[in-house]
């Protein structure tokens, strides 16, 4: 079992940021488009709040700084792959420093719908250098847990068709110009995304969850895993003294 441990940056400390007083828990849900992440997060939030935890949930392109800019850029036709990667990284940095860290400082459970791994997977799917984006995103905190909702492309296709009923331009990777057909492009692009996420499983210690199961089964599996993080045992009283020194 993974022991509760102080949060740390992956490879690049954020300038001027003290992380020795971060108390909360950082939990990430990752997975390709349309896999059902937000459904699970909504349920998890409800459950955690019932258990008495304060919860913050956040996700990509929701920052005060860059969220709107990203939406606007995606509506145009000139957003290049590197620009997109960096715009999302800016958005992430803003949320990390101004939302996620303050919540962790206050002892919240922070549920994140997609972390740097989706940014990295999209960059890799567009042929960008893996080491480049890994270093760029190296200022992220290593979460207490990353749950990777994994499934195959056929399952995603059925979810899109039965759910939304239409393919999205960006989720289909139409900017990669595989061809004019959105379905074919979706399949090729999402295959690349899944492959990129798969390649991160060991390195970033993803907990892989089979997302082709019924919603309830996935939820119970997530509950079981999150219980193992022993959220209730994290008490400021117990940790305050040794923790301040341990992380610097």
């Amino acid at each position, binding site marked *: 079992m993974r022991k509760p441990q102080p949060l740390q940056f992956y490879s690049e400390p*954020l300038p001027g940021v003290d992380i020795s007083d971060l108390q909360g828990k950082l939990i990430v849900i990752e997975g390709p488009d349309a896999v059902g992440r937000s459904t699970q997060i909504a349920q998890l939030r409800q459950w955690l709040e019932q258990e008495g935890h304060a919860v913050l949930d956040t996700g990509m392109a929701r920052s005060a700084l*860059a969220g709107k*800019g990203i939406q606007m850029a995606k509506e145009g036709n000139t957003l*290049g792959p590197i*620009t997109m990667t960096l*715009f999302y990284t800016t958005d992430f940095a*803003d949320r990390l*420093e*101004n939302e996620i860290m303050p919540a962790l400082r206050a002892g919240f459970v922070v549920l994140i719908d997609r972390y740097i791994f989706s940014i990295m997977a999209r960059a890799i799917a567009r042929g960008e250098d893996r080491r*480049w984006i890994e270093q760029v995103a190296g200022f992220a905190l290593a979460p207490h847990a990353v749950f990777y909702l994994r499934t195959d492309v056929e399952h995603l296709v059925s979810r899109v068709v039965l759910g939304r009923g239409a393919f999205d331009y960006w989720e289909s990777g139409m900017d990669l110009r595989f061809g004019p057909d959105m379905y074919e492009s979706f399949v090729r692009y999402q295959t690349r995304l899944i492959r990129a996420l798969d390649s991160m499983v060991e390195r970033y210690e993803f907990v892989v969850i089979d997302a082709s199961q019924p919603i309830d089964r996935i939820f119970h599996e997530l509950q079981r895993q999150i219980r193992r993080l022993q959220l209730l045992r994290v008490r400021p009283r117990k940790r305050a003294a040794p923790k301040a020194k341990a992380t610097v």
Partner: protein
Amino acid sequence: MSLFVPNRYRGKLIVVEGIDGSGKSTQISLLSHWLRSQGYAVAFSEWNSSPLVRQATRRGKKKEMFTPTSFSLIHATDFADRMESYILPLVKSGAIVCADRYAYTAFARDVARGVGRRWVRNLYRFAMHPNIAFYFRVPLDVALGRILGGRDALKYYEAGMDLGLARDVEESFRIFQGRILDEYEGMAQEVGFHIIDATQSIEEQQRLMREIVMNVLGDSLKNGILHQPVGGDFNAQATTAPVL
């Protein structure tokens, strides 16, 4: 290992760097006019000018939302957009692109804000290697005299007020520019700047720049560079450098 991606195209990329008040904008403006007068197709790219990113940058500055990291990243995003949709296609097509500030500005300014040197160099690894990078070397007091003498109030981030270096804006600006100057001087060797003594007369600096351009690019300017159509006005949307 090279910092950037080599330029394998027929066009050229010329950039100027230096602290505020070094006179670089005046010089690159004069140089681009001269190149244009020689018949070359010349385009111009200014730091922090991407239309795609403008809204976010403006918002962040107005509301003072930036941290050193998000400040660095939004400028890299702006740069990436200009690289992907402007500079790269223009250089590929054979134009001479003149840039007022380049990735080196981030190397100096972001590090002066506390961002890691290696991190910010990696961040800009996708940039095209300039054919010539001019660095306008000027003592801090000379540059400060030029800036503080004849302009409106210093802006918050420009003066490094976000770093809490001093309560007085001018004092903060002085300390911040001093740090940036140190970073420029520290990287001059590493990145191979063509150094121009910016205390010389404007005319003398311009003469030196043109000489360096001819020495470095001389032969390659003779063939391959895109020329303006006779009587045409190439790239009407290209901006001109603001004269300090």
